[in-house]
């Protein structure tokens, strides 16, 4: 089971965090701080896996962003690496060559994407099409609701 996923920049700024086990804010901050420091200190050729406390940590860097997953002892490291990759692909497809800024400005979308892809720390849907369809459906509803709002305002002569 995935315990948490952290996205942080090369400068060590946390961009997104998703926790799948209950943690206090204090311990979240502590874990993040320690892991960011550990991973940034590693050399590029080193393996993507490390033992950390009772967890295994799998990470990979995409451009300026590090994606990092804390998993349990019996979890599969290589597959976690591909879980990260699939998430990157999803973001990429949705935003159209995703960059760090997309995630900063649309953090809520990145969260919604997580909930469609991974739930409770386990993979929910591995099909790229299915996940993107769910997100696009959300966007369609959003558009409709926006339309509705505009037309109400128009009716009132406010728009």
């Amino acid at each position, binding site marked *: *089971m995935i315990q948490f996923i952290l996205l942080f920049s090369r400068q060590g700024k*946390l961009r*997104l*965090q998703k*926790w799948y086990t*209950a943690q206090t*804010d204090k311990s979240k*901050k502590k874990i993040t701080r320690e892991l960011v420091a550990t991973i940034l200190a590693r050399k590029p*050729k080193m*393996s*993507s*896996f490390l033992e950390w*406390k*009772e967890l295994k940590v799998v990470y990979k860097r995409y451009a300026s962003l590090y994606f990092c997953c804390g998993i349990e002892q*019996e979890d*599969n*490291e*290589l*597959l976690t*690496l*591909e*879980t990260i990759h*699939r998430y990157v692909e999803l973001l990429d497809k*949705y*935003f*159209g060559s995703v*960059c760090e*800024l*997309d995630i*900063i*400005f*649309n*953090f*809520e*979308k990145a*969260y*919604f994407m997580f*909930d469609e892809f991974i*739930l*409770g*720390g*386990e*993979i*929910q*849907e*591995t*099909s*790229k*099409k*299915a996940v993107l369809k*769910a997100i696009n*459906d*959300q*966007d369609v*509803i*959003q*558009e409709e*609701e*926006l339309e509705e*709002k505009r037309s109400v305002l128009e009716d009132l002569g406010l728009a």
Partner: protein
Amino acid sequence: MPNMRGDGMRGLAVFISDIRNCKSREAELRRINKELTNIRQRFRTDKTLDGYQKKKYVCKLLFIFLLGHDIDFGYMEAVNLLSSNKYTEKQIGYLFISVIMNNSTEMKQLIIQNIRNDLQSRNPIFINLALQCVANIGEKEMATAFTNDIPRLLISGDTIDPVKQSAALCLLRLHRTSSDALQMNTEWTGRIIHLLNDQHLGVATAAVSLIEALVKRNPEEYKGCVNLAVSRLSRIVTSSYTDFQDYTYYFVPAPWLCVKLLRVLQNYPPPDDPSIRSRLNECLDTILNKAQEPLKSKKVQHSNARNAVLFEAINLIIHMDCESTLLVRACNQLGQFLQNRETNLRYLALESMCLLATSEFSHDAVKKHQETSERDVSVRQRAVDLLYAMCDRSNAQDIVQEMLTYLETADYTIREEMVLKIAILGEKYAIDYKWYLDIMLKLIRIAGDFVSEEVIYDRAEKGKVWYRVIQVVVNRSDVQSYGAKIAFEALQALACHENMVKVTGYILGEYGNLIALDPRSIPMIQFELLHSKYHLCSPTTRCLLLSTYMKFVNLFPEIKQHIQEVLRHESNFRSSDVEIQQRSIEYLKLSEVCTPTVLATVLEVMPPYPEKVSPLLVRLKQKKPLMDGSLSGAGGDESTAAVDGLNHESTHTETHKTNEQLTSSHAINLNQHTVQQQQQNGLLVSLDNESSTDENNYSLASILSNSSAPITSNNFYKQSSLDQQQSSFYPKPNSVPSTLGSKKLLFKTSDVIFENDLLQIGAKLETQKNICRCELYFGNKTDINMTSFSPSLALTGELIQQAFILELRVDAEQIKSTIEPKTQTKQMLTIECLKEFRDIPKMNLSFFYSNVPQKLEFSFPLYINKFIEKVEMDSNNFFLRWKNLDKPGQECQKIFSAKNPIDHEDCSQKLIGFGWSNLVGIDVNTENFCGAGILHTTGQQIGCLYRLEPNKQTKMYRLSVRASKDTVATRLTELLEDQF
């Protein structure tokens, strides 16, 4: 402005841009505070806020939270959004609760009510939002509230697939966090299992995670999933990747589902049904075959996904541990990975290899790969580490042999460490001395350089391996002739390290006679063999050999002439080396003038070394870990003693002098001991004072250290006596009888575990499976700050017996070093039970109280029973299991007299407090108690059953405990026998 999707809340985007444009941290903080003030005011005063505005502000709060700031308002507005009928508003409301409020108790009922409404919605997209929220928060109240709704959604025929997926994982989360609140109806079992067969791969993927968790909880109930998992797996691995459309990931069909299926199967023994078993073997075979096919893509994603499945298949093969062909194939595959360019693969291969090595079938196969040369030294280091780490009593001989073989070809940079590790393992797991000697001589043969001077044991022990070898031989009469034999054989090699010459020279000089009857090693041959090396050796070794020759004169009078010739030889008799010359002259004279009786006395066999001589030897007997390094100071001197005595001293006084040297060098050692002893005595004295008031008389629980108290470091010693004078200004903490923590937490989960005039320490434990979370509260009872406060939990006795296989792993939170007067500070500890343990940890505490260093040490009352989880079962089950645990060692029975009046309720509470269940109605005699529990350790789960029979007439109890692992029953009985 970057890409904005959807309705793009403009205000939010502007705010984010503003923050990003801030030049300094202060500017950012100002901007945030301004925004927070604004939002707070809007929320408070503006009653006309519409949903969109609320959503926008809540989103801003979320962003501020993600920047690392605390958010303490807006909760109500977020919860309001939940009841909006607009999806986007609802969604942001749920997001806010999931991210920010996930462990707050506020408005819980309101949230649950909203979730309930959405779960009952006709719109699946609303249902999913609610499910995702429950899965993200996953708390007990929700488990209780939705214990019916969620499973119903999962198994109902008219639920659409995405909702099923969410429901499965939502249920999984609730099961993990609060399985006791969740009532899983057994009627659902069959339908849940059948989700494995669902034609939608997404549903199957989500369901298999849930099933794995349920299987772990109740393997028997979910046994049916084995067949389904095997057939699903088989369908995937035998199909073409084109059959799965979007579920194929870089040419690998459904890797996530495959891995999960393989995981589920690791919870069961190999299937009994031959057809299923052969189908499973085919699957595993196919996966192994696919690994040999050429890659379908150069992308790393392809090979990663393929290998992810492969590694999981190998895990299953290792788990089943019965198909030797598969095991060997798996092992060869891992061997291939060891040579792979990818660091990741080498890393994982070593990890799996380690698992494999524990399997009977594959041990040989693993061996083959130990010699593989690893390009990356750090990974190679890991290989050695793994070998070393997986060594235990059962495989030590193989592993040490293995490492010796590897050592021959090992890289020079890791040889030194390998030699050290082999020496440690050899000693730690020595079963008999012959084996130990074999290993050590091999070690000298292979890596003589590293065995010699200060290289080995450089920090911990400046001992030399070859001295130890000699000491073992001298002290053990039963291995003397064996030692002589193998040393003699070892020296026959063409090239021989000088250390080997030394060892053999010394041993033959003492015990050459024991092998002289063998025609292959008659005296003359022994002598010639040694002498053939003589000219190649350094002067020190030659000196040693001259002494050996002299000993031969006594042992073998028939070759006296040859020896005298050597002694008389120019190069010795007139050697430029004074020592050689002196020895030659004196030995020659000795051999000429003395009668055989005098010779026999002078050249008598060396007496055994005093037992304390060699820390290595001492440890060899005690089988204790080597690395505690307390003898480092004395090591150097000591090492010159054993054999160098032979070099320096001549004739008459030789034996004597050697002994003298020995004693003197050990005096240093001894002195050290004495110092320690005294310090320890100090401890004991202060303890003795206290234990008179100790009611329980169990163990040394606490020592209050005042100025006269134990301070382990000598430097400290002086300092404290200085400080003592100052301290008289303050109320002196006399040795107050401390509350003793003996068996304190045996039945309870929280208690005061230590108290004296200065300090009170409370502990609160919460255990889940093999993990115990412990909160410690340190309370300063005084009116003065305690500074440099540093508590630590140390493992003692058996807990570190096997130095590298710990029984407990403790992870302690850092705490602030000062405790203010009359306040408490809290420390969180996470203690993992790796193996069942016997000795309890020790708490060491040091701090300064009015500049006086204080040191406390007391037993931390964490007993093995804290890792017991109670198990309920019916009487059939109970007696079946009871009968199955009938091997010797699995049962322990004690009869003891009652300390308190026998009270049924009291017993029952104690037994429940102890951790296991108190099953009513199992035993026909209602006065008796029965129950069961599982002892969780990282490595295994140990089933425990007990029966307690009180006898009111005799005021006695009979306690019988059975456990699936040796020694556990005994330990549990010991814990309880004085408690009733």
